[in-house]
């Protein structure tokens, strides 16, 4: 049974990396703006879609697809800020209104993607070319472990992105400005920070992260359709709340915890109760520690 346990741990790491990558972008927008961007899952899907077009239709290498996807979803995300968030913020509308407008944007993005899918592929799903990543799993015989190169890439990418993002937020001037804006917009603008510019950069970054997550996810699952974001949206939300909203490490931790519970529950109480267990734990944690595991207590957030 030890082999199985080890293998399941590896499974948790690979699934958790996907969740964490998705949750990072989600969390970034929340930490700086304090709003939930429910269109993040649509950006994730667009990333997978652009990656597909570049590698499949244009037959470019994977790295080109990755960069193209990140740029396009970054720009889409900026557009989202300009169309769906900024006008509402200017009017001082309730945050719930921003949440609903992001849902409208998500519906729009998914439906545009669907129209394009049909135009390009004559159906609403398509697969990445099979030769992009070697498919032969890496086998560690003594431990009975197997991991595919695609999953390894995702784990490494997630690690790199987490470290880079941490560096960006804590060490660079952009990151300091982002944190200042996150702490208090008014104070930040009094300090001479161009708040609108910081918002745009935040959205670009979050969108690009979403796009990256989309391509990597598609590398594992091969198949892309306009709806792949919908299943991960709720998981991502759970991860960031669990880990602590507005905390980058929290998003990552949350992603791994959700993956961990899912996989442990499949092995113990059965796969049917998988998500029930996730939400019951979430429930319990929120009641004990409402700000999430790594979140700041409410009073310190402006």
């Amino acid at each position, binding site marked *: 049974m030890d082999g199985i346990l080890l293998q399941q741990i590896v499974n948790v790491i690979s699934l958790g990396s996907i969740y964490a990558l998705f949750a990072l972008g989600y969390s970034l927008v*929340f930490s700086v703006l304090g709003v*939930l961007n*429910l269109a993040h899952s649509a950006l994730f899907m667009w990333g997978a879609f652009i990656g597909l077009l570049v590698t499949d239709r244009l037959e470019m290498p994977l790295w080109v697809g990755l960069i193209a996807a990140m740029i396009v979803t970054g720009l889409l995300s900026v557009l989202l800020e300009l*169309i*769906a968030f900024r*006008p*509402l913020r200017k*009017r001082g*509308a*309730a*945050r*719930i*209104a921003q*949440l*609903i*407008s992001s*849902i*409208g*944007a*998500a*519906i*729009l*993005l*998914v*439906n*545009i993607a*669907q*129209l394009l899918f*049909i135009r390009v592929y004559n159906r609403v799903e398509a697969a990445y070319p099979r030769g992009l990543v070697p498919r032969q799993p890496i086998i560690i015989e003594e431990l009975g472990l197997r991991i595919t190169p695609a999953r390894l890439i995702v784990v490494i990418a997630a690690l790199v992105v987490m470290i880079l993002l941490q560096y960006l937020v804590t060490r660079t001037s952009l990151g300091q400005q982002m944190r200042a804006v996150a702490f208090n917009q008014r104070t930040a603008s009094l300090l001479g920070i161009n708040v609108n510019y910081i918002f745009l950069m935040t959205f670009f970054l979050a969108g690009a992260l979403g796009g990256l997550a989309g391509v990597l996810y598609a590398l594992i699952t091969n198949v892309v359709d306009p709806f792949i974001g919908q299943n991960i*949206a*709720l998981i991502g*939300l*759970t991860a960031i*709340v669990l880990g602590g*909203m507005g905390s980058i490490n929290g998003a990552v931790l949350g992603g791994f915890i959700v993956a961990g519970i899912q996989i442990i529950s499949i092995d113990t109480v059965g796969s*049917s*109760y998988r*998500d*029930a267990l996730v*939400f*019951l734990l*979430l*429930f319990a944690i*929120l*009641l004990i520690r*409402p*700000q*999430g595991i790594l979140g700041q207590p*409410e009073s310190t957030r402006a």
Partner: protein
Amino acid sequence: MDFLIEAILSVVRPIGITEPVLQFMLVNAILGISMYLLLRTGMFSLANAGFMAIGAYVSVLLTKELDFALGAALVVAVIVCALIALPIGLPVLRLRDIYLAIATIGFGEVVRIFFLNVDNMILSYLNTFQDAGLRRYELVGGGRGVRNVERLTETWHLIVFLIVIIFLLTRLQRSRFGRAMVAVRQDERVAANMGINVVYVKNMVFVLSAMLAGAAGVFNGHLTRIVTPEMFGFDRAVDILAYAVLGGTSVWAGPIVGGFVLTALPEVLRRFNEYRGVFNGLVLLLVIVYLPGGLINPQGWRKLWASARRRLTGQPAQPEAGGG
């Protein structure tokens, strides 16, 4: 009543609203009000899809298995919702904002997963403790749902129910309790210092809202003829929120109009064929962005009109009465 419904339908049918659509519009208006109560008290709860599921399942089992009349099933289902809402609300309503939202989403998901698996739970109970030796047990049908439910909901039921709800709601809002709701939304701590029992107000509203959502579930279950867990997932929770926010939460008419519009919209947009979804998203986005207070929000319309006139005539805006 029939004449009235026929008259309404003859007006709206040309734009694509047939009687079933009208019925769902009315059901969703009830859901909109259930959300409106919560938002008016400052609670961002997304539990109502779960309570809708409970209302639907309980009532459908009663009418189908025990031959209850719709009215009796409605009463029982609504009471069950209230009894479940009470113990859920007490711990959960201490949470705020997005934390409350996600905890209540969690509740909805647990309800959904419960109905998916309850048959198997009963089966393993029977086989373990009663030695029933059964291979299968079907009460709610898991993912397949309860089928062949009789279509007992009539349009006039919904109209009467909605009118009664509106009547009670307007009464409630003008009472001490209604004022307390508003106070709790705006500042919980000050409300407490004014002698308002915040915990009581929040829980009461949570229970009332759950009962309304349950009632909507009862009506809905007896319209769709089938009740499956998938009908009450995350998407439904978000839809219910959208009814209230799109319609506006400043007056009770807001969530009703919101429910009407968001239900009718996909049907009215059928003529756009494959572009339907695009327009659906676009309309939602534009309404929210340009009318942030919702559709039924006099102040928002006034502002919009002022800015439109300003653009059209190039004149400076009139100073607005009341400011703010």
